[in-house]
């Protein structure tokens, strides 16, 4: 039977919602047990949150001063050692998991299954390649440990009704000091988190400037949506990188996605394919975004957005 270790992602003492999505993928393997591991300088509050996730057998904590920041070079040796008694190690396919999990995999001497979108069996998974333009089924040797990152947009967050026990682990492993955290510049926002929000409004090159992007923020606030952007809008400096949606940005699956002034490059469409309803607003009726939109509206966004706000009352 499988025993799965899920690496918890957290920031500023709070558990990231992506962790509960990775637990959902772990549940799909139908394992004997699912343990969540929290590495932090102060893991208790994070572990308490993780303990509530349905399906979790127990939460393991490694409290060390070196774990204050998520440096892959520091975390990986501890996880690789803890992973010895597990058949699977899962991490969310966020920048945190993408940075860390391959380092763990290499220490365990295996390649990784990146971006798991479906579980076919304990050693069989589906994942996207070519920006999601092909889906492959991969089989991992039954004798090898499975290290995988979980494509969060493919999995709902497991519910939080559980109460798993929390256990402190002490792992005796020397940690490197060759990599050091300097700082993290975070965009301050009261808006919903882009990766977990049920509604998202995104702006593209058609918005035209950083100042014009206010129209997107205002409309998003009106309907309680998170705000995203196309690569073109981020490259042009209209908004910061953490708002980028697409192949190399965030892959999201909101119930409602409204693309405003986004033509729909294939790399952007990759990031929104799992959205419930896609709405496209663009002045070019031939834009590729309309090929995958559920509802399309052709016209000038600077005229249409205020009209939408008015229609909402």
């Amino acid at each position: 039977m499988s025993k799965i270790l899920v690496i918890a992602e957290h920031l500023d003492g709070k558990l990231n919602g992506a962790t509960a999505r990775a637990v959902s993928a772990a549940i799909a393997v139908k394992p004997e047990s699912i343990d969540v591991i929290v590495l932090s300088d102060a893991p208790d509050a994070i572990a308490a949150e993780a303990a509530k996730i349905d399906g979790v057998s127990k939460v393991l904590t490694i409290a060390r001063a070196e774990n204050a920041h998520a440096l892959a070079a520091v975390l990986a040796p501890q996880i690789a050692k803890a992973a010895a008694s597990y058949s699977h190690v899962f991490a969310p396919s966020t920048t945190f998991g993408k940075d860390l999990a391959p380092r763990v995999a290499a220490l365990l001497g295996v390649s990784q299954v990146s971006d798991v979108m479906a579980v076919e069996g304990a050693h069989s998974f589906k994942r996207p390649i070519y920006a999601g333009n092909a889906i492959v089924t991969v089989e991992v040797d039954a004798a090898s440990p499975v290290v995988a990152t979980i494509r969060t947009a493919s999995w709902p967050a497991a519910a939080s009704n559980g109460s798993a026990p929390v256990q402190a682990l002490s792992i005796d492993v020397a940690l490197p000091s060759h990599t050091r955290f300097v700082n993290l510049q975070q965009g301050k926002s009261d808006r919903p988190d882009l990766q977990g929000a049920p509604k998202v409004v995104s702006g593209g090159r058609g918005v035209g400037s950083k100042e014009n992007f206010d129209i997107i923020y205002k409309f998003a606030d009106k309907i309680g949506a998170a705000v995203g952007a196309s690569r073109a809008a981020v490259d042009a400096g209209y908004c910061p990188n953490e708002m980028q949606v697409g192949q190399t940005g965030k892959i999201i699956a909101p119930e409602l996605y409204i693309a405003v002034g986004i033509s729909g490059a294939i790399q952007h469409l990759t990031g929104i394919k799992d959205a419930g309803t896609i709405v496209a607003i663009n002045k070019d009726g031939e834009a590729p975004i309309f090929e995958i939109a559920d509802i399309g509206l052709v016209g000038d966004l600077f005229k249409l957005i205020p009209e939408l706000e008015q229609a909402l009352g």
Partner: protein
Amino acid sequence: MKILVGYKRVVDYNVRIQVKPDGTGVVTDGVKLSANPFDDIALEEALRLREKGVAEEVIVVGIGPADLTAHLRNGLAMGANRAIHIQTAETVSPLTAARTFLKLIEKEQPGLVILGKQAIDDDANQTGQMLAALWDRPQATFASKVEVAGGKATVTREVDAGLETIEADLPAVITTDLRLNEPRFIKLPDIMKAKSKPIDVIELSGLGIDAADHIKTTHYAAPPKRSKGVMVKDAAELVAALKQKGLL
């Protein structure tokens, strides 16, 4: 200081990928191939570090079949000093690629290895991190800014929460994100010059590494298609449609 740069050849990013009807792969016959865009960014960054006097030599490394030479010549035309062609007819896994780089590191002793954060064919995003683990050296993934001075690299990384800056002692592995730089265009005289630059060819099988792949791809499928949507004529109709779906 030497810089090793991973330079992978992939299906061009503008090509619309088609899955073969029998599910054994994607159609690559007659399809345009180009450098992985993230690897062009990696090479550009290495060249800029050489131009700043931080590095003396930039070496592009490719892993692939005999006809990879023309691709490596492009890397030389862009400005790399020399190329290493690890020859194999097989597709290699990220772990095998990492082990291959580790072998080259033992010989070349680079101060930096710069790789693309992912290749746009398999989208694995693993090789740089694996190499750093096997080498027991720092990794700075998803870099959008790199400064090298005093035996260390200060790297700004694009992460989900924003921009993270870390410090890494050299030697180290850096993987590139899209906004690190804009790669230069290759000029005609540089293509001529590249013809006389050396390309070392080494058989992968002669490196003495474990190239077994314990993950097998058994089936390829086209992604599920979204059904064709409807067009609405104005804002009021859009709001009505979304209200009907219970989304507003």
